[in-house]
């Protein structure tokens, strides 16, 4: 109809390649754009003017949406209609104490060893390939990561509410690598959610698989690809039908979405946010690789739901928004723990570095401008840790932790990123190259404060 306008729209650079919608080309801009088109065409290659040099890394390229075909297992419906089994709240004596329980300490010791000896050595490659190595995840299964938050009565290992233990484990794992920690913790997060809010039938249908050697990949999908995203107001919708619900929408940052066999998806139902269990074999689900700035080992994907029909019993927890909100808080708690672990990794790395790196005839650590950065990392990191522990302790005791987790998240996103930034700065040019892990931590720490869902404790 309006050919002139659509042509201008097509020629306009705006809205692509990171350009704001107000950008316009001038005549030189058009000439440069044309030259760039030429440079990109295969004409140059056909006439042999350019060396073939690219080695495309398959895993990180966008390949378009495809159906989830990950060896979807059939979860056999079983169990009665009653409420599920719940782990009791952890008892507390009203004493200020920073000492973990013996069980928690043992768990932290085991996970720390795994993080140091298995996770950290695999981190650089996992970042490149955009997936956590199978052997690493397998070792994670062996130490019981997926069933950490599952009550004993359901085959898990938690005697009581596990938010504190989960926090300590996430921190310890993230000290190895945040991306792999996410990949390893995501399935267990779904299992924990089932333990917390599942009906008897949901628990008996899904949880047994998590206690097996071949525990499924599973993902908690709350994030959406929206600017100024408000997790409490998902644009993904659930519509009631005679048989159950129909879900429509797009989820972002879904950990290991391509291989997940079970999703917990957040959607608005009658104006309130609600969690839905969606098996990956359900029609209407497609995923696309979503390689991002950081946490690349988590194999992030975008999950699209188009007319996805789920049965009436697919609702996880309450439909008034209360379960969903608690899920968001517990997820933020897990992200805080991840930030603390990675922050500690930064501090542990830069400390010996600045003591050995010399400039102007002495170690750079002897300069206050360098030493004060170290001091500030240490101060803020400990503050982040204490805020996170306070929220976790309250969550484990079954107390309201709304305020505490909000403050922990605020500090962890702000100071965590500052620590990542300083980590690179302290190494200077060496921090910018992949020879050192600080550039990865810089990218990973940007996820904190942005990401919602994916993990919970």
């Amino acid at each position, binding site marked *: 109809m309006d050919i002139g306008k659509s042509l201008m729209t097509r020629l306009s650079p705006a809205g692509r390649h990171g350009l704001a919608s107000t950008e316009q080309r001038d005549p030189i801009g058009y000439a440069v754009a044309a030259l760039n088109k030429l440079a990109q065409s295969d004409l140059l290659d056909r006439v042999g003017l350019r060396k073939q040099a690219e080695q495309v890394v398959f895993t990180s390229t966008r390949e378009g949406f495809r159906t989830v075909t990950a060896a979807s297992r059939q979860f056999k419906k079983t169990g009665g209609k009653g409420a599920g089994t719940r782990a009791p709240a952890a008892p507390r004596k009203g004493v*200020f104490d920073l000492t973990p329980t013996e069980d928690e300490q043992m768990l932290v010791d085991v996970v720390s060893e795994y993080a140091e000896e298995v996770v950290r050595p695999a981190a650089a490659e996992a970042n490149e390939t955009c997936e956590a190595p199978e052997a690493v995840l397998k070792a994670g299964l062996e130490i019981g990561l997926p069933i950490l938050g599952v009550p004993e009565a359901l085959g898990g290992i938690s005697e009581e509410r596990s938010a504190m233990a989960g926090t300590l484990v996430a921190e310890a794992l993230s000290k190895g690598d945040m991306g792999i920690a996410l990949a390893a913790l995501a399935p267990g997060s779904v299992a924990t959610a089932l333990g917390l809010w599942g009906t008897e039938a949901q628990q008996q249908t899904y949880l047994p698989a998590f206690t097996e050697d071949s525990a499924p990949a599973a993902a908690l999908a709350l994030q959406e690809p929206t600017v100024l995203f408000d997790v409490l107001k998902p644009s993904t919708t659930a519509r009631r039908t005679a048989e159950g619900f129909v879900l429509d929408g797009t989820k972002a940052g879904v950990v290991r979405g391509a291989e997940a066999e079970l999703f917990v998806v957040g959607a608005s139902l009658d104006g309130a946010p609600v969690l839905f269990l969606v098996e990956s074999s359900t029609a209407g689900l497609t995923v696309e690789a979503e390689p991002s700035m950081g946490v690349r080992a988590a194999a992030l994907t975008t999950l699209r739901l188009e007319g996805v029909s789920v049965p009436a019993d697919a609702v996880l927890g309450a439909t008034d928004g209360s379960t969903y909100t608690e899920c968001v808080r517990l997820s933020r708690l897990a992200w805080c723990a991840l930030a603390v672990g990675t922050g500690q990794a930064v501090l542990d790395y830069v400390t010996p570095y600045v003591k050995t790196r010399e400039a102007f005839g002495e170690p750079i*650590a002897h300069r206050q401008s360098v030493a004060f950065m170290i001091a500030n990392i240490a101060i803020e990191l*400990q*503050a982040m840790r*204490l805020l996170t522990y306070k929220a976790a302790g309250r969550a484990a005791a079954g107390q309201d932790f709304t305020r505490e987790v909000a403050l922990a998240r605020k500090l962890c996103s702000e100071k965590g990123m500052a620590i990542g930034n300083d980590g690179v700065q302290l190494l200077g040019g060496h921090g910018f190259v992949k020879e050192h892990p600080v550039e990865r931590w810089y990218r990973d720490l940007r996820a904190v404060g942005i990401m919602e869902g994916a993990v919970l404790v």
Partner: protein
Amino acid sequence: MAISLDDPKKLKPLASQAHQVAMNMLRPISRKYDRAEHAYPTELDMLAAMIDGLSESGASEGAGAAGVRRDEKPEGKEEGTKNGANLASVMSIAEMCWGDVGLLLSMPRQGLGNSAIASVANDEQSERFAGVWAGMAITEPGVGSDSANIKTTAVLDGDEYVINGEKIYVTSGDRADHIVVWATLDRDLGRAAIKSFVVAKGTPGMRVERLEHKLGIRASDTAAIIFENCRVPKENLLGSPEIDTKQGFAGAMATFDNTRPLVASMAVGCAKAALDLTRDLLTQAGVEIDYDRPAHVQSAAAAKFLQMEADWEGARLLMMQAAWMADNREPNSLEASMAKAKAGRVGSDITLSCVELCGSVGFSEGELLEKWARDSKILDIFEGTQQIQQLIIARRILGLSSAELK
């Protein structure tokens, strides 16, 4: 044992008592003594008597400036984690400073010198100096943060030390009945020769030269004190008179491990006052703070408030950690400095930002916000500036000496 960072249940009554005192006794006279700098707040005598009574009854859990004394670690069985006098002190002082920092610093018998006596005195001295009100004299006109360089001298002459020198910035230096003064036994022997002496007011040769006019904490008197051939009994030297070059400065500096969490608690309390009022004023202005919704979808004022509250909570937990470690007799130099550094800078940022958020209402003397923004500044300076804390922390983390990291 389980990680739990909520306020100790058994100290809650004490904290709420302090809160009530702060609200009903300090706040009503807060502005009065900010304006009437150098006037003695007579109201505090009554309060001090009440606090002494509480202390004697045991209801105060040993809180207060002298609550930082550390007994030897008992041998044998441990009965689990302790929430004792150090936690009681930081919690109650924070509440009192929520009332008024300057007035807290003017509380009879609660001077920093009392903390110093509690930290380094032997048993005989503790008994002899029980019930005194002691100010602390370290800083000199030419010596601030580098307190190892002090010029004031103490020379043994018979059974007495003869002290000569000039001290400035002595908190409660006029009102206190005793002064704990740092002096060197031998300037050639460096920091190891620095000792602290308790000097009773009225001792010939010691005189208050002048009182300072200050930015904040104007209710508290800050004195310059001159020592001219001031003779004190040799038993008033706190700790050991030996010059142990190996132990160096550690003896005198041990005081700071104990007083820094207290200063952190002052900053925490003052900042809380600003946060509480600002939140109320913002609510009246129609700004609600939602802990669940992302900050970036709330108003800029709400987002700023969340950031300040997160910083405040971080400072407070670092303070609690340092005190908890002291209660459980764990070395806490690093944690004490962390608490002081974080609380000091956060105290300034919060009180100043609250003035900014509240605009003219915050800036004018009609509210106390502007006063808190003035009071808080000293807390990032005395008992070791922000920069000194960072040096201490960096040296500890990096394992560097003061010769390596200057």
